[in-house]
């Protein structure tokens, strides 16, 4: 187990290294940052001075080497706009996004998982058909539009819920639901189909044949096996949410890291963009690692040597 952990951690670091290299190369292809960065009224000499100040006058390989060394030290440069360390800016907003995403994941699991099980054990009944239709509906609804609808109904018309910020639990309800809607539908579909696969297997027939209560068969034998692919998908969705909550953060005016990254994208604030992508890459890699470890805990057949 320890060896596995070490190998996987090394792989994780390598993956982040690859991502960092790709970002560096990719940014070279997208043009001169000075075009957006330098105020319009600067003359040529002032622009060159600014370029020097950010180290953008050095040859490419020198810039790359410096970029990598600083990355290893956890220094991703300062924001072109505010002058503060880019990584610090992103990490400062990280908890806000994390709290929102955890709330969304909680909603998605609490609703999606039982509905998926319910649809599977009542397959081809009206319950199943209704749930399936609802899940297609959930997957089809544009998240940004659902967010706006919620604001229209609960903030503008009814005045029950606040439409921006995250200062109380009430603030979390609408943005977390907006984020979770697609995942509720996704989890429902996925749990339903894996449960159906598992329920058709021999060991389930055996369990029923030896007279176990249906409840035990479904929840103890079938669900436990269906949970394994579910954990992968849930882990993946957690990563996607952390790096994809941008629309929700924009609509509900939440000062999360996606919002910051979007603003950085608009203003071509490259250090902040890079910091965001690196943080996201590390997060994805860590989530993957945790999912693999959870596997070993849940499924006794999987034990890593």
């Amino acid at each position, binding site marked *: 187990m320890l060896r596995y952990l070490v190998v996987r951690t090394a792989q994780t670091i390598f993956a982040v290294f*690859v991502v960092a290299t790709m970002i560096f190369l*990719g*940014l070279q292809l*997208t*043009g001169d940052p000075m075009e957006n960065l330098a105020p319009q009224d600067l003359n040529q000499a002032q622009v060159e001075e600014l370029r020097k100040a950010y180290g953008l006058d050095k040859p490419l390989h020198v810039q790359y080497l410096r970029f990598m060394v600083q990355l290893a030290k956890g220094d991703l440069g300062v924001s072109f706009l505010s002058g503060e360390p880019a990584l610090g800016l992103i990490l400062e907003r990280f908890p806000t996004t994390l709290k929102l995403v955890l709330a969304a994941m909680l909603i998605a699991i609490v609703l999606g998982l039982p509905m998926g099980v319910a649809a599977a054990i009542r397959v081809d009944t009206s319950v199943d058909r209704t749930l399936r239709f609802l899940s*297609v*509906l959930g*997957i*089809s*609804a*544009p*998240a*940004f*539009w659902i967010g*706006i*609808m919620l*604001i*229209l109904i609960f903030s*503008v018309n009814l005045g029950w819920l606040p439409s921006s910020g995250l200062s109380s639990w009430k603030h979390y309800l609408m943005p977390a639901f907006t984020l979770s809607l697609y995942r509720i539908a996704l989890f429902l579909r996925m749990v339903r189909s894996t449960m*159906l*696969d598992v329920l*058709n297997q021999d060991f389930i027939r055996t369990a029923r044949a030896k007279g176990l209560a249906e409840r035990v068969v479904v929840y103890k034998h079938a669900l436990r096996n269906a949970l394994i692919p579910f954990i992968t998908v849930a882990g993946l969705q957690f*990563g*996607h949410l952390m*790096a*994809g909550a*941008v*629309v929700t953060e*924009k*609509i509900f005016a939440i000062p999360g890291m996606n919002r910051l990254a*979007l603003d950085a*994208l*608009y203003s*071509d604030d490259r250090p902040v*963009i890079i910091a965001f*992508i690196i943080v*996201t890459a590390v997060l*994805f890699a860590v989530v993957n690692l945790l999912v693999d470890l959870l596997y070993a805990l849940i499924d006794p057949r999987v034990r890593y040597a």
Partner: protein
Amino acid sequence: MPKNFPWFAALVLLAFVLAAIFAPMLAPHDPMQGDLMISQMPPAWVEGGDWAYPLGTDEQGCDVLSILLYGLRVSLAVGFGAVVISVLIGTPLGLLAGYSGGRLGEGIMRLADIQLAVPTFLVALVVLALTGGGSVIKLILVIGVVGWASYARLVRGAVLSEREREYVLAAEALGMSQGRIMFRHILPNVLSVILVQMSVDVPRVILLEATLSFLGVGVSIETPAIGLMIQRGLDYIYSGVWWTTVLPGLVLATLVLATNLIGDWMRDAFDPRRRAT
């Protein structure tokens, strides 16, 4: 006719496609030529509305119905166009990786793994933002290129299981070229897998385009697009102007729902694994 075919969804999709094709004839007004005198007029059935502008007007005085009709063109063009690009790139690479294998095949699949590990949305967002927004063509290309990997992986998997079948062995024994075997013999047999994946991707890409345009990195401001319309409408929801967000969202959701229902049906009908269970 096939079992459980979603007739209603198919009719809705057909209506949307026809509406998009004939938008110039159907639209009562120029979608981008507004009249500020009549800006933010509510839909015709609401008090203060006018049947000359059935779904009302936006803050520029542009006709909402006309923008929606033209907006459908953008949604459908990007949805189908990008997916076709992904198929055109991913299929040959998947065939190559699956049939010839070797180091090249390995390399292709590693690249696909990397691409699949990063959310399409994020890549498209960063690329479009850093290259300064775009046109419909640019969106099709960017989303299309980013989406190649799932097709490469899918086709490779299908090819691996086809490769040892008798008809391939027979073609090899007859001394046919690799290219001929790949495209003329194996490809027709993996088409259903590609088709199923396309039906899942089209609605996803339609939503992706709308989201990118909503964030201001999709189609340019002068384009009548559904995502852009909702973005502009967002500024006015607190002043009671609901029709520039609610209506385009409804159209978008209906379009995506119809394509998703057809996609679900196609997966059940064509996916050999599902047929077996």
